[in-house]
């Protein structure tokens, strides 16, 4: 069965027809070619597929694409216009080596954005709770926590909101 889906992704309107069996993460990657959203476990455990739905982080592998009709989505592509103009959170991850293989990074960055939007100066404990839904199998989390602490410092006084959009 096919279903029409109208979504706004990174402030750009899309209108597509999807198979009702398609999950949101697949729609973003295969239909909209926004491949920054990764799929790890596919069952809601790892957080690699984290996107923002109406301004709140969700796991896009646990949402049917057809159910996203009429909603507003921000993916990692919405945070910066390119490698030379990274979001301050992305800068902090680069500067503090908050990644190794990078597979979990888009989800980590979006969970950081969510955390710092609600809590601009989180404690280490609050940071660890904030990224509890994002698994990293490389770093042991130390440098990720440091990256988030540095991002919080560099964002002081500035809104931790998506800064750019494509199109």
């Amino acid at each position, binding site marked *: *069965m096919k279903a029409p889906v109208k979504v706004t992704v990174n402030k750009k309107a899309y209108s597509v027809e999807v198979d009702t*069996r398609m999950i949101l993460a*697949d729609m973003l990657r295969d239909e909209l070619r926004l491949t920054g959203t990764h799929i790890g476990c596919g069952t809601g455990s790892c957080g690699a597929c984290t996107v923002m*739905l109406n301004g709140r982080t969700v796991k896009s592998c*646990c949402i*049917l694409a*057809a159910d996203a009709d009429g909603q507003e989505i921000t993916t990692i592509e919405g945070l910066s216009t390119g490698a030379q103009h990274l979001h301050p959170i992305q800068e902090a991850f680069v500067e503090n080596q908050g990644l190794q293989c990078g597979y979990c990074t888009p989800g980590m960055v979006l969970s950081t954005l969510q955390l710092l939007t609600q809590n601009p100066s989180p404690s280490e404990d609050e940071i660890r*709770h904030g990224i509890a839904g994002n698994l990293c199998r490389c770093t042991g989390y130390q440098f990720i926590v440091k990256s988030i602490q540095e991002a919080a410092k560099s964002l002081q006084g500035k809104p931790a909101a998506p800064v750019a959009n494509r199109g």
Partner: protein
Amino acid sequence: MISQEFEFHAPKQLSEALNLLQRYGDDAKVLAGGMSLVPLMTLGLLQPKIVVSFNHIRELDYVNEDKNMLRIGAMTRHSTIKTHQLIARHCPLLAEAASYVGDVQVRHRGTIGGSVAHADPAADYPPVMLVVGAQVKLQSAKGERVVKMTAFLKGLMQTDLQPGELLTEIQIPKLPEGSGSSYQRLHRVEGNFAIVNAAAVIEKGFKSARLGLGGVGETAILVDIGKRLTKGVNDEALRGVSDDAYAASHDAYGDLNGDAEYRKAMARVYAQRVVKAAASKIG
């Protein structure tokens, strides 16, 4: 991509949704937050013919109150339960329980109605629902009925919901002024289901006391511990509570997270912890 074909409906009105459930009966599966249903469909463990999403029905997302009762719409997300002022004031242990559900992303999408209707034996809400005396409103195209949580939870992921019926509202009596309450759980990794969980409510002056346990039977279990606490919370009372918790856990199951004896032993520990914590909060 989910392998099995299904028909998808996303009504915007509750009446329209209830008509769909009436028409398709047992073939229809209700999609609330989807935090359990969508992965189960992806894994092929559930293959419903019809999926009816309730995510576009705004009238089921609310928290309000009347004189004695909190009323929570079934599509209220866990993140709202965790932070809502009315819940913090009149049923703080429900907010405590919500803070343990999944992780940030899961709490943004998952719903209280979905969790309660899913009836996982170690879910966070059921022990709380039992100790506060919650009831659920079940609606269908033909009418509605209100069922006490003790009667709603029937067994392992089994509830009193009939084909065509939808859980639309959770009704929670406000805790009496000055009551102490607590919810705690044992888990190895944050975001996982609890191995054992427990909730307690103690009325001011030890007029009544109830204990709820999860993870130690097919459903959450309610234990009246009022008689144990008539003289307050002392060592003897806590030993009694511990024995009650152990006895109530006689049907505990074992899995990779812990065998039955371990769960029963932990039921003793967590029963005492929540009772002590609840007593310390009596106002």
